[in-house]
């Protein structure tokens, strides 16, 4: 790859919003590894993960006008797009039939699955950090962050009050922050 010039975050955002070819190449070269790692945390199958990575960058290109810098950093926005794309992929019929997953609405099986099988990830990443937490924290973060369930859905799945789910999620994510490198 050719040497890329350096951008400040504001310059990069301007370049992206004006759909500059160079800005997108820079964005891709700088963020592909961390976003790819994030996809692999949800989708261990590299072929599918490769497709999701492509989808993510095309979605960024197509939706850059919707990015509002006053609401957060560019990376946070891209991370949310990436997480949504990966979760949507795991919920798609094609992916489910490939993985022979249980019905995703069967929450208990999801939890059992997570308890019995470590996700097949070779990469160190957020999921590894989540798995270092105590069991009840790990479970709520798994369901919330990696499976994309709402707090209400988790409350039903775990058969615990919504208030407990909220408290547990907040405590879990504070603990997770301590794992950051």
């Amino acid at each position, binding site marked *: 790859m050719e040497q890329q010039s350096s951008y400040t975050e504001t310059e990069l955002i301007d370049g992206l919003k004006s759909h500059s070819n160079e800005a997108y190449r820079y964005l891709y070269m700088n963020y592909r*590894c*961390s976003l*790819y790692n994030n996809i692999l945390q949800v989708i261990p199958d590299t072929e599918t993960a*490769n497709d999701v990575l492509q989808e993510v960058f095309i979605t960024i290109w197509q939706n850059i006008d919707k990015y509002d810098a006053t609401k957060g950093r560019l990376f946070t926005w891209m991370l949310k797009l990436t997480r949504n794309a990966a979760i949507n992929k795991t919920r798609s019929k094609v992916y489910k039939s490939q993985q022979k997953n249980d019905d995703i609405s069967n929450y208990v099986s999801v939890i059992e699955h997570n308890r019995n099988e470590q996700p097949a990830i070779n990469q160190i990443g957020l999921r590894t950090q989540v798995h270092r937490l105590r069991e009840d924290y790990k479970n709520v973060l798994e369901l919330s962050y990696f499976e994309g369930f709402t707090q209400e859905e988790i409350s039903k799945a775990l058969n615990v009050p919504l208030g407990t789910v909220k408290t547990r999620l907040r405590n879990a994510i504070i603990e997770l922050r301590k794992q950051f490198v």
Partner: protein
Amino acid sequence: MDINSYISSGIIELYVMGMCSPEEEKELELLRRQHPALHDAVLQYETELEANMQKNSTLPPADVDNRILQSLDALQTPVIDINKNKKNRQWLRPVAAASILLLAVSAFYNYTFLKKIKNQELALKSSPGTAATLPAADYIILNKPTITPVAMYGVGTHAICRCTMFWDKSTGKMYIIIHHLPKSSAAKDYQLWAEVDGKPVNVGIIKDEIRGRFIEMPNVPAGSIAFTVTLENAGGTTRPTVEETYLSGKI
């Protein structure tokens, strides 16, 4: 509200990572405008999260890099909407005529000088049908001087799709490599059409298993000037469904 206990409650972390309820999100967005300390704490967490994620990274395969960079480049191609601005602007006509002339000249130069280079690049670098992975016999045909590559680009929402056709002037044979085309469902098939005398002529079904391979297409009619790929009901059809055009390219 005690803003400090709000800040340390874990809500910021959930908000940044997209795990809040819509009500919690709204509340935080309102509060951050009133409390600079909250705003700063959000930015602080975002920065920490980004640093953490950038350290946990995995390099995608090089062919994936090429594929994605190419699809991003392809999105740059401007779309000219001829129906826009059709209002009464007579004075613009000479300007428009001059622009069209310039565009035509530029297009001609692009066509002559860039097409061959670009097409070759596309054919050689794209994955999975990269030249490096092709059997030697295919590679020999691909590199014949009489081969003219015809790049086929994704249409509309299918911008990421790519394939290249190769026309061998010396033998009249036509070949195809599918670089990227989503798998069709069991009820659907991709169908290749050639344009002859302004009319579409069926060339045949593109089977899923030919992806990434260098395949001869035997039924390409003489006098073809352009090609399209449409998604049709399984088994194909006699007329292309224009709305379902995935790829198109001109010789």
